[in-house]
């Protein structure tokens, strides 16, 4: 075992080790626990960055691969690796988790219990990171499901008033989707390639090669793609499978929302890019118009729903549905530009919406309410820095060019002007137009939100409350995200440069 083949395993499993260590610390050593949380997430982040530094960006190949036998009887291997598609999401996972750990230094939601909180968060981190580097369907599924449990507890224990309903809904809905996905995986397994001894495989690379080479029959692809896509679509979440999201977000603690929006939603879209489309290209072609259609419905629908929101957090949760719509639209075009737009959109959404949830968390911490009408405006007068950050992020989220949110949207619209050969061009152009309308509505609800929260004068009921503006811990947790919002906007190459080769390799595989 050397660094090159153990790096990913070590990095991915380090948070679990952290969780175990934290469990062993007596619970009255609160500061130590929080410090350990920061330490382990930071260590994992450093390792992830080391992987990113050691990555060869000149190729679309998989790197840092480790492939050993795991459950031999069913042919499941422990197969991990990383390529340009995984890399941005993988690093983002560790970054966001680290920032959440910093944020936890100051804010642990009621009812406290820091130890359990951080341990679950670290478990969640491993699950999310693992999803992006697993190259075996069983391993992928294990990581995929591993995420559910900690998030369930994060919502169910540290959530707000309606947390039980939200957490159960979240859990069951995603589990419902997973079942179809698992069935799809099994179908792939049994219809997939066999080796000389007649053994089937769960290996994603071999299945991709087999599927992209036309190994699966058309009917099979249609059925299986439908099943897997349903499972993934719930997670994304695509309209009309999105209704768990606003509830989960609204009730989840700040950290939960940040990680949920920042990383977990991307697991679904990542699954489309990594599993559903390359393994079942014909199915993807057949379903692409439908996916694109649902995506633009989601965009317009979510932005209209946002206009009707009275709860700040719920509004941002709905905005996520819209943004993920752009990501799905990019994916549905099945073009290199569209898929890269999708990956960029995922990263940008992770950074920006994660930051928005941080902001809302801090606003709630000051006002103890999330009702826009109760907050009543004037935040810019009372807390200019918080209001400024909030406005900056909201504007980034509405897709201002020069900030991160722009590239995913515009490239996704660009790609839908000319979707992959064989798809209905007119239809996708109509999607583009609808997506454009969505961007106007998006601007509308964000600006209206800013008007009602930031602008105007502070209502009487808040005067003399002595709200603190942004505190040091918040700055520490937020500055990387704010910087990333700007830097990704100005130098989109940071993502496109990583993804270009890998997506090129992927699409050339499908297209052949």
């Amino acid at each position, binding site marked *: 075992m050397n660094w090159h083949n153990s790096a990913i395993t070590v990095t991915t499993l380090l948070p679990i080790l952290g969780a175990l260590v934290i469990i062993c610390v007596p619970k009255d050593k609160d500061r130590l626990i929080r410090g350990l949380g920061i330490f382990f997430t930071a260590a994992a982040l450093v390792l992830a960055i080391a992987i990113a530094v050691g990555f060869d960006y000149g190729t679309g190949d998989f790197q840092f691969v480790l492939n050993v036998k795991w459950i031999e009887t069913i042919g499941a291997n422990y197969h991990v690796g990383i390529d340009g598609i995984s890399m941005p999401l993988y690093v983002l996972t560790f970054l966001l988790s680290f920032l959440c750990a910093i944020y936890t230094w100051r804010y642990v939601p009621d009812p406290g219990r820091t130890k359990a909180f951080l341990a679950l968060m670290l478990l969640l981190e491993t699950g999310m990171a693992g999803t992006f580097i697993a190259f075996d369907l069983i391993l992928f599924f294990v990581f995929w499901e591993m995420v559910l449990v900690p998030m369930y507890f994060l919502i169910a224990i540290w959530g707000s008033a309606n947390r039980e309903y939200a957490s159960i809904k979240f859990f069951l809905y995603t589990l419902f989707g997973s079942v179809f996905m698992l069935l799809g995986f099994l179908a792939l397994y049994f219809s997939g390639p066999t080796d000389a001894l007649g053994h089937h495989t769960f290996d994603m690379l071999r299945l991709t090669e087999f599927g992209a080479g036309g190994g699966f029959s058309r009917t099979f692809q249609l059925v299986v793609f439908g099943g897997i896509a349903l499972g993934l679509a719930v997670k994304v979440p695509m309209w009309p499978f999105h209704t768990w999201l606003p509830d989960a977000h609204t009730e989840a603690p700040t950290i939960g929302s940040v990680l949920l929006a920042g990383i977990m939603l991307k697991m679904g879209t990542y699954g489309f890019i990594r599993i559903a489309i390359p393994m079942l290209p014909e199915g993807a072609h057949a379903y692409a118009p439908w996916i694109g259609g649902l995506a633009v419905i989601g965009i317009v629908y979510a932005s209209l729903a946002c206009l*009707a929101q009275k709860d700040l957090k719920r509004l941002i949760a709905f905005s996520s549905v819209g943004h993920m719509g752009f990501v799905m639209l990019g994916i549905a075009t099945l*073009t290199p530009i569209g898929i890269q737009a999708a990956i960029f959109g995922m990263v940008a959404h992770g950074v920006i919406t994660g930051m928005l949830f941080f902001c809302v968390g801090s606003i709630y911490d000051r006002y103890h309410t999330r009702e826009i009408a109760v907050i009543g405006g004037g935040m810019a007068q009372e807390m200019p820095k918080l209001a400024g950050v909030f406005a900056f992020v909201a504007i980034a989220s509405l897709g201002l060019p020069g900030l991160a949110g*722009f590239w995913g949207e*515009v490239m996704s619209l660009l790609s839908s*002007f000319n979707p992959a050969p064989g798809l209905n061009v007119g239809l996708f152009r109509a999607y583009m137009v609808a997506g454009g309308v969505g961007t*106007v509505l998006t601007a509308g609800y964000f600006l209206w939100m800013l008007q009602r929260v930031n*602008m105007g004068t502070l209502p009487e009921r808040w005067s003399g409350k002595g709200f603190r503006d942004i505190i040091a811990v918040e700055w520490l947790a937020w500055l990387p995200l704010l910087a990333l919002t700007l830097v990704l906007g100005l130098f989109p190459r940071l993502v496109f440069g990583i993804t270009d080769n890998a997506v090129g390799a992927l699409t050339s595989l499908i297209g052949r």
Partner: protein
Amino acid sequence: MAGSVNVFVRYAWLIPLLPIASACLTLFFGKRTPGRGAVYGIAALATTMLMSLGVLWHFVQGNGVYAPAGLEWFTIGPLRLELGMYVDGLTAAMLVVVTTISLMVHIYSLGYMHGDARFTWFYFVLSMFTAAMLTVVIANNLIELLIGWEVMGVCSYLLIGHWYEEKQNSNAAIKAFITTRIGDIPFMFGIIMLIAATGFTTTNIVGVGEAIKEPAISALFVSMAAILLFGGTIGKSAQFPLHVWLPDAMAGPTPVSALIHAATMVAAGVYLVGRLFEVFLHAEPWVLTTVSIIAAITTLGAALLAIVQDDIKRVLAYSTLSQLSYMVAGLSMGEEGMTAGFFHLFTHAFFKALLFLGAGAVIHAVHSNDMSDMGGLRKQMPITFWTMIIGSLALAGIFPLAGFWSKDELLVVAQETGHTWLFVVFLVTAAITAFYTMRMVMLTFFGDYRGHGHPHEAPSTMTGPLIFLALCTVGVGFLGAPQLGSVFGDWVFFEQPHAGTFVAWIALLSTVVAVGGLAVGYRLYQRRAERDPMESALGPMWNVLQHRYYIDAFYMRAIIYPTRDTLSAAVYWTNQHVLDAAVNGAAALARGLSHVIMWFDRTIIDGFVNGLGETAGSTGGLLKKVQSGNVQWYAAGLFVGVIALAIAFIRIA
């Protein structure tokens, strides 16, 4: 690339970067800097103004386009984007306009915004705004241009909403952003079409220009792209039907209005058409016709609206709308019109900035925007008065001020290219323009003071820019004077320089019309009346104009409110009561089913098992009676049994 390239042109990319740098300095160090950070912006813009003049000098010397290869920005699939600059005469002229006006506005704001709570922030946004416009001007590719374009939108939003404590101001800010954004969507699609025309290989303006000439690209495709691009102009340059944001944008501080109206936002729309003129020329003729119709509607409609305004800034706002349409109409007349249109943009920038800043000085003095609170200010504010007079006469198109030359050139082109109906529209609008300009001057500076307090002349930080701009207004017109060789036409042209011609009868006609308008205005507003004389003169039209043709109300009632309140509520209702109800219904169904299952399990399956047990138990209950515990009974049984067996054995035997 003809001739040598001077250092300013070579480093022209610094021109947008310097204001960005100053903006960052202002944001991060502004509050700790003496003078609260204004110094950064002013220094940066003074430098960029000098550099822009240096860039212009390159073209004065008669050199050609400078378009170096850009830096590679990123590659995505086949598409390669770069960051680069494209400097031609049009760019140079725009750079000069933008930096000059912006510098003046920066200096002027020292006085105007003095003591404002968010002074530093104001300067930050001002610098960003300028930088964004400069990015639009200098960009060599569509995406870079789009970035500047949208950043400008956000900055205008922030500036218009600068005094966000008032709901009205933040409403205006949102309106400006959303309205322009509506225009930006077709604009973005237009850009996408142009990129598609290159086969998704480049976004460069030059590359796009070549691509649309390819025979594979149909004229209809180019036309669609052109008309979509023009959507951006409609939004940013506030053309009908997206003009509604501009008058409301007057909610922002006056220097901002000057910047928006003279040099940045609205000019960007016109500039866009010029920058992508090739696309418009390659489109089918109906595109340019559509453009001219929209311009004509706007120019007349806005001029009429300017007549009835009481807010001095709104008069100027509608005047801007109307003048912008002049430019757009000029461009719509084809190659010949391009030089004329941009010349008007060039001159208009100076005198409109002057007028706005002058109006700002007046507002600063009387603390009101309404002309009904003004009057007789020529005595208290002589510098403002005289500079405003120069600006007003230029706007009205009086010889030899800037406006005269540019309007004249537009008229000449309209006549030469056979756009007679535009010629007429131009003339009528010129008359109305002269009239409302006079009305504004009369109401503000003549008669008796009707406001409160004691107005006084503005500080030198404000009058300085006024004087400078007044001098420019007098001077810049001659750049396009045909008698002096129409220098401007040598810088800004499409493919071939187009020498302006001087047609005596047109010049005379336009002067007569302008003087006529001024005279009528003077006559009507000479004496102070309780009611505006136009109110009775216009009759029912007065109301229509006061309500801006009811267009704003129509948008609000027919689009904004239904979308924001009704449609969104309906969608959310659907979400909660249809989609979510389906989910909850599924859950409820599952729970109901679980109850059924539970009943079945308890009653049938478990019942069977329990039933077996119970049957066995009750049978045992019957049998147990036999086992009384009385040994003698057992024994009796035993004997009976033995006897029975004995009998049986005997019988068998």
